[in-house]
C-alpha cells in the first residue's frame, strides 16, 4: 500500500500533526477535567471544544484575509491567529 499519491510536503505534515496533537490534548484535558458550557463574549454558550473550533475556523479566515489583502509575510497572520485563538479559548 503506497501513499505516494498524497504528495506530502513538510509544512503540510507539520500542519496536520499539530491539528492532531491539539485534538488529542483537548480530548485528554476533557476526559480528566470535564468542563461545562458557559457564556463568554461570543453570542452562544460554548464548551472548550466549540471554542477551539471557532478559534481554528477564525484562524483560517485570518490567514486567507492576510494573503488576499496584504503582501506581507504570513508569520504576522500566524501571530494574529494564535492571539485570536487564545482570546477565544479564554474569554469566548
Amino acid at each position, binding site marked *: 500500500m503506497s501513499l505516494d499519491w*498524497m*504528495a506530502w*510536503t513538510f*509544512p*503540510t505534515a507539520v500542519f496536520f500533526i499539530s491539528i492532531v496533537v491539539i485534538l488529542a490534548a483537548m480530548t485528554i484535558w476533557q*476526559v480528566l477535567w470535564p468542563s461545562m458550557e458557559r457564556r463568554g463574549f461570543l453570542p452562544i454558550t460554548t464548551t472548550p471544544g466549540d471554542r477551539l*473550533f471557532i478559534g481554528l*475556523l477564525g484562524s483560517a479566515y485570518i490567514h486567507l484575509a492576510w*494573503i488576499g489583502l496584504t503582501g506581507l509575510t504570513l508569520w504576522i497572520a500566524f501571530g494574529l491567529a494564535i492571539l485570536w485563538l487564545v482570546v477565544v479559548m479564554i474569554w469566548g
Partner: protein
Amino acid sequence: MEKWASNKAWFLVLPVFVIVAFSAILPLMTVVNYSVQDIFGPGQSVFVGTEFFKQVLADSRLHEALLRQFLFSALVLLIEIPLGVLIALAMPRKGVWVSACLVTLALPLLIPWNVIGTIWIIFTRPDIGLLGSTINHLGLAFDHTASPMDAWVTVMLMEVWHWTPLVVLLAYAGLRSIPEAYYQAAKIDGASSWAIFRYIQLPKMRGVLTIAVLLRFMDSFLIYAEPFVLTGGGPGNATTFLSIYLVKIALGQFDLGPAAAFSIIYFLIILLFSFIFYQALQNVGKGGRS
C-alpha cells in the same frame, strides 16, 4: 429529559466514524497537500507555499462566480423554504391522497442530476420545448442559450422544481408530529390560522426546517451537474457557479494546485455558513420553547 452521560456510547458511534473517516480524511489531506505545490507529474513537484491561494483570491472571475453563487443560494432558500412549507400545509393529513401526493412529490428527487438538466433542455428549448415555445407564442422572446436573464430564470425554475419537494416532504413530516389535541385546543381558544401556524406549527417544524435549510444551502452552494448540462455555465459566464468554475480550472486547464486552493476556500465558506445556520436555528428553537 436529561440524557444519560456515558463515554461508552462512543463504541456505538465508532462504525460510523470509521466508515466516514475512511473516505473523508485522506482525500481532504491530499487536497491540502496539492494546494501548496505545483505538480508536473508523478514525483515531480515544486513547493510554492501560499502562491496559489494568492492567485485564487485575486482572481476576479472567481469573485464574480462567488457573488453569483451567493445570490443563487439566497434566492433558493428564500423561494424554496416558504413555498415548501406552504405546500406542506396544504397537504391532506390523512386518506388515500397522502400516498399519491408523496409519490408525486418524490419523483423529481429520484431523477439523476444530469438527467434533470436534460429534462429541462427538452422542456425549455424554443423550438421543441413546451415552456420555451409557449412563451415564444405569447410574443415574448425567450432563449436560455442567448439571454443571461433567461438562463437565470430557467436555472432557478429548474432548481425550484427539483428541490422544493424535499422541503415539502421534510416540513410535512414535521407537521405530522403535532398531536390532534393541539389543534382542538386552538380551535376552542378561537385561534386564527396564522396564530396556529406561528405558535404551534412553526415551533414544531424547527428540527426539520433546520435539516431543510442546511441541506438546501449546502447542496445549492455546491450545485454542478444540473446547470452544467442545461447551460454549460453560459451564455458567457452568466450561470457559471462556483463548482462549474472550479471544474473548469481543475479539469479544463488541469491546474490542480489552484483548484485545490480554491476548493479549500470553498469548503471554508460553506463550513462557516453552515455553522452559523446550525447555531442560529438551534438557538431560535430554544428561545421559542421557553
